[in-house]
């Protein structure tokens, strides 16, 4: 097994007085397909952002192993499209990398083809349907050729058809070897896409096990309760 790509060591994140993450230690290895599960407010989003480096840690460390310039891309629940063509939106990450125009145009078109949106390249990004926008966001992430792909409840706002389309794309990406962490409320999705599951509650990681184990093995009581869908409203 290789060294961890990204590792959080006893990481805590506070927003004012609220503790969103408490003393979390977690190592992501290349090829991992991780799912984050837990109730709303359990810290899943914060953990993703901490992995990306989008939020500062109030305690603990974030360590990048292996590659000195690790490329991380993130897909959010509600993708933000600029007021411009879908193609330009997908190019955004490449523009920020100062890639020359011809090269980035080509890469962006390939990304759009990859997600089945090549025909919409010229359309304004904001007029696409929710599912199409999420696929465009995936294309945008894919275009930068990330080592790690983070996804924050990517299908939570989509209708069943769009949900399936996006899920399939995610499955294809991870099958190609992209290391992935995804937070989700959809346990079926978790079973289909992840090989490792983290269970969070109140900012702590209470379980870090394989998918098999999560769905059939022994778990801490809280996790078991969560699975049974009977999480107490304490």
């Amino acid at each position, binding site marked *: 097994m290789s060294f961890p790509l990204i590792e959080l060591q006893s990481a805590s994140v506070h927003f004012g007085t609220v503790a969103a993450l408490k003393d979390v230690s977690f190592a992501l290895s290349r090829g991992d397909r991780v799912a984050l599960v837990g109730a709303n407010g359990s810290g899943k989003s914060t953990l993703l952002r901490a992995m990306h480096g989008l939020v500062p840690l109030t305690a603990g460390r974030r360590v990048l192993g292996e590659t000195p310039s690790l490329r991380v891309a993130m897909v959010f629940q509600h993708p933000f499209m600029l007021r*411009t063509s879908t193609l*330009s939106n997908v*190019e*955004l990450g490449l*523009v920020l990398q100062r890639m020359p125009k011809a090269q980035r145009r080509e890469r962006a078109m390939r990304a759009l083809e990859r997600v089945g949106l090549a025909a919409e390249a010229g359309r304004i990004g904001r007029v696409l349907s929710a599912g199409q926008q999420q696929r465009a966001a995936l294309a945008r992430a894919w275009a930068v050729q990330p080592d790690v792909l983070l996804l924050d409840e990517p299908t939570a706002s989509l209708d069943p058809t769009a949900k399936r389309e996006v899920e399939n794309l995610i499955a294809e990406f991870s099958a190609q070897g992209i290391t992935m962490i995804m937070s989700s409320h959809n346990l079926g999705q978790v079973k289909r896409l992840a090989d490792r599951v983290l269970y969070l509650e109140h900012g702590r990681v209470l379980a870090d096990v394989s998918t098999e184990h999560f769905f059939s093995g022994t778990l801490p009581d809280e996790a078991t309760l969560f699975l049974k869908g009977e999480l107490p409203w304490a």
Partner: protein
Amino acid sequence: MGLIRTGRGMLMLSLLALTAFAAHAQERSIVVASTTSTEQSGLFSHLLPAFTKASGITVKVVAVGTGQALDIGRRGDADVVFVHDQVAEEKFVAEGFGLQRLPVMFNDFVIVGPSDDPAGVKGRDVAEAMRKLAASKSSFISRGDKSGTHAAELGYWKAAGIDTLAAKWAGYKECGCGMGPALNMGSSTDAYVLTDRGTWLSFKNRGRLAVLVEGDTRLFNQYGVIVVNPARHPHVKAEWAKAFADWLVSPLGQGTIAAYKVGGEQLFFPNASTR
């Protein structure tokens, strides 16, 4: 992305714009600081083209109150000062800001007021008129702006033995404004106003106002032209400024002044050689 192009474009446009206005330096022109009443009489539109034709020098007139015009001269922001306040002008030269004061022309002041003349001031004697105005506590609009007209007004109160500071009455209003606005106030409130004849002749908003007091020699308003001292402000275009001053007092300039008429009436009376 369009962003970088837009940003660069804007910056270039700004620089271009800034430089576009800058290219004006080398023309033959002078700046003359004069008064609003002189400009509003229309004299400059008549006088300046004649000078430019004779000399090839363009004249740019900044018309403000006498106080401000002299201040502009003191600062060196004008090449010539052309106002009508002899005392202030002589002080200007004495303090070294101007080379020499040349008398040019005079016009006269008149007192206008409501045509039914409630204070009964009609006549030729300005001091008498002022006494009657104070005694009847009539509505009077003063410019109150350190202009030549304002200075003249204060002189007339003094001549009448009235101290407006000490004995100010409710009807005496200082507007701190130019001749036109003062006349506007006078016409809309039926008040008395001391005005120069030039502004009055071109003033269109008379209401019930009419000329009531005129002809007193004390009402004559003397204009002087002063070249700003190049020793004080080396950048002053002294040669062209002197050409202007000299032209004003020359027979040609004096004749042009006399030829200016509003409604068939001559406004300014050249007197360069007689003083």
